[in-house]
C-alpha cells in the first residue's frame, strides 16, 4: 500500500522574467517500509519533488496524497502535525541548530509533539544510541564532523517514529566511510517499518535502495527494480 503518492505534479518557479519548470507531470508512490531512491543530476528536480512530497513546498499543479489523504485539503496545523509525527527529514546541509547540543537537536520534534521531559530524555538517549553518538550527545553540533552531523540529523528524523524518512542527498557532504554508515542506518530504518525516500546523484548510494527512480529535466524518465 502506498503511504506517499503524487499524481501529475508540476512545479514552476517564477524567475525574474522567465518561468522555470522544475517538475513536469511527475507521478510516483512509496510503499510502507520501502526504500526508494531517486537518482538524477543536479537541477533535475529531484530535491524539489522531495520537498513537495514532504510538505515543505507546494506544487503548482497536481496532487500529493499521504496515507490516501490529499495534502492540499489538509490545514496548516494538520500538515504541521504530519511533519512532526509521520515524516522525518534528512538534508544534505543538515539544518541542525549549531548552538544546540546533539541531544537538544534530536529533542526538538519531541518537544513540539508535547512529550514529557522525562520521556524525552529516555527517547533521545535511545535515538542517539541508534546512530552511535552517545559519546557526543552533549556536544554542540557546530563542533561535530559531517558524518556526526548527518547521524544527528537522522536521529532527529527518527524521533517520532515517522512513517517515512525523506533524505535529500544525505551523503552529499560525507566521505565514503560515513556514506556507508548512513546507508546502513537507512536500511535499518526500513527494517523498523519506516519507508525511506532518498534523492541522490550517486548511483552507488542508490543501489542500496529497493527501488530506483531516475529523474531528468523535471520528469521521471526511467524506473528499474
Amino acid at each position, binding site marked *: 500500500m502506498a503511504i506517499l503518492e503524487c499524481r501529475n505534479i508540476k512545479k514552476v518557479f517564477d524567475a525574474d522574467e522567465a518561468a522555470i519548470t522544475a517538475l513536469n507531470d511527475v507521478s510516483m508512490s512509496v510503499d510502507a517500509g520501502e526504500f526508494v531512491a531517486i537518482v538524477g543530476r543536479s537541477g533535475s528536480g529531484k530535491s524539489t519533488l522531495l*520537498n513537495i512530497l514532504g510538505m*515543505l*513546498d*507546494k506544487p503548482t499543479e497536481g496532487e500529493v496524497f499521504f496515507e490516501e489523504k490529499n495534502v492540499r485539503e489538509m490545514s*496548516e*496545523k494538520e500538515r*504541521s*502535525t504530519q*511533519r*512532526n*509525527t509521520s515524516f522525518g*527529514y534528512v*538534508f544534505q*546541509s543538515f*539544518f*541542525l*541548530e549549531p*548552538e*544546540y547540543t546533539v541531544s*537538544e537537536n534530536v529533542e*526538538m*520534534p519531541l*518537544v*513540539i*509533539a*508535547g512529550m514529557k*521531559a522525562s520521556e524525552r530524555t529516555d527517547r533521545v538517549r535511545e535515538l542517539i544510541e541508534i546512530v552511535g553518538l552517545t559519546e557526543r550527545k552533549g556536544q554542540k553540533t557546530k563542533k561535530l564532523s559531517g558524518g556526526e552531523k548527518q547521524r544527528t540529523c537522522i536521529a*532527529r528524523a527518527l*524521533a*517520532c517514529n515517522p512513517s517515512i524518512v525523506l533524505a535529500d542527498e544525505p551523503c552529499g557532504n560525507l566521505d565514503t566511510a560515513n556514506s556507508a554508515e548512513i546507508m546502513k542506518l537507512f536500511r535499518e530504518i526500513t527494517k523498523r517499518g519506516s519507508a525511506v525516500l532518498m534523492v541522490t546523484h550517486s548511483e552507488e548510494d542508490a543501489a542500496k535502495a529497493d527501488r530506483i527512480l531516475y529523474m531528468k529535466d523535471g520528469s521521471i524518465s526511467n524506473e528499474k527494480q
Partner: protein
Amino acid sequence: MKNNKFLHFLKTELRTQRTMWLIYTVILAVLATALIAIVSLTLQMTDELTEFVQGEENMIYVSSTDPAVFRKLEEYPVYVSEYFIFPGQIEDFSLTEEYYLRKAGIDPEDWYNENSDEGEYKGPINVPDTWIMFSVNPDKDIFVRYVNDSITEGTAIGKEYNHVQAVWISEDLADYRGLAVGDIVSIPYYEYSGKKVSRSSTECQVMGIFADDGFWSLQCVLSYEAGRRIIGPIPFRIPVEVESILDYNRIVSELRDAGATVTFGYMEEDSDDRITGYIYILYAMFGVNFIVLIMFGSVLVMLIRMYASRRTRFFAMLRTVGMTGRDGTFLTGILFAASVTAAFVLGLALSPIVVSLVSKVFEEQFIECSLSASPFALRNLVLYAICVVMTALIVTVVTRRNRRSEIVDGLHRDL
C-alpha cells in the same frame, strides 16, 4: 504541553543566543529608560506646573456688571471659589435709597408714607432702614458675602449683619432657583472675629421679586435692621482659578471678548508670555515623548526584522519538525516580550537617575519649581503594557512574510 513547548524553546534560545539577546535587551533598555524618564518627567511636570501655576499664577480676576459673563464661566474648566464684592469700588457705585426702591418696584413716596414712623423708615415687613446689595452664588445657596469688614467696620451693617429677616430677589434669581414670594430661604453668611472667619446661616422670607434689566440679574436685596446707609449694586470682581494652563489663554481671550475686564493675579504684563512659555515647554516635552516612542517602536521593528532574518532557517527548521508558523510567531513574540520586560526592568532602575539629572536642568534653566518624578508609578506599568502590546503587533506584522512563505524557502535562505 503547549506552554512547556514554548518555555523549552524560550530557555534554549535565550541560552544559545544570549549575546544577541543581551545586545537587543541593552538597546531596548536604553530606549525604555529614555521613554520612562521622559514620560515620567512630562506627566510630573504637567502636574507640578499646573499646581504651581494654579497656586500662584493661574488666578485671574474677572470684573463685569453683566451676570452673563459670570454664567459663561460655567462653560470653562475653572474653579470659582465664590463671588464677592470688590470693596474698593463701593463708593463709586453707591446708589440712592430712592433708586433702590424704584428698582424693587416701590414708590419711595409710598414707602416712606406707609412704612415710616416719624423720622424713621420702618416697613411693615420689618424692612430696614438700610438696604444692601449682596452677591449671590446662583449654583449653591443664596450666598451672602459681606463687603470687606474694613468698609463696614463701625457701622450698623458691620455689627448687625446677622439680623437678616427679609429678602427681595430678582426675577432671574426667582426663576433660576424656583423661588416665590413667601418662601423661606437660608442665607449663609460669614462672621468675622479678628482674623477668624466662621460660617453661619439665618433664615429669611422672600418678601418680594423685583423686575430687573439684567443689571440685577441673579441678585438679591437683603433688608437689615441697621443704620441708614445705602450701598448699591457693584460690579463683581471674581477670582477665578484656571485649572489647566493649557486653557489659560483661550479663557482669558474669550472672557475679554465677552466684555469682561480680566486682570491677572500675581503676574502682570508679562503673564501671557510666561504662561505661553510654560505651554511651549510642555508641548516640547510632549513632542519628545512622541519622538522617543517612535524611536522605541522603530528600533523594535528593526530588531525583530533582524532577528527574523537571522533566525529564518532556525524557524524553518522548527516548522520542518512540526511547529506551525503561528507557533513560530508566538515564540518570537514571547522572546521579544521577555526582552522588552527585561528592558523595562532596567529602565525602571535607571530612569530615576535620568529623571534626577533632567529635573535639575529644568529647575535651573526653565521653571522655578521642583520636579520629583517617580518612575515607579502606575502609569509606567501602563506604558510597559502598551509597549508589550506594540511588541506583539509588530512581531505579528514583521514575521508575516516568513510565516506565509514555504518552509523550503526558509531552509535555503542564504545557503
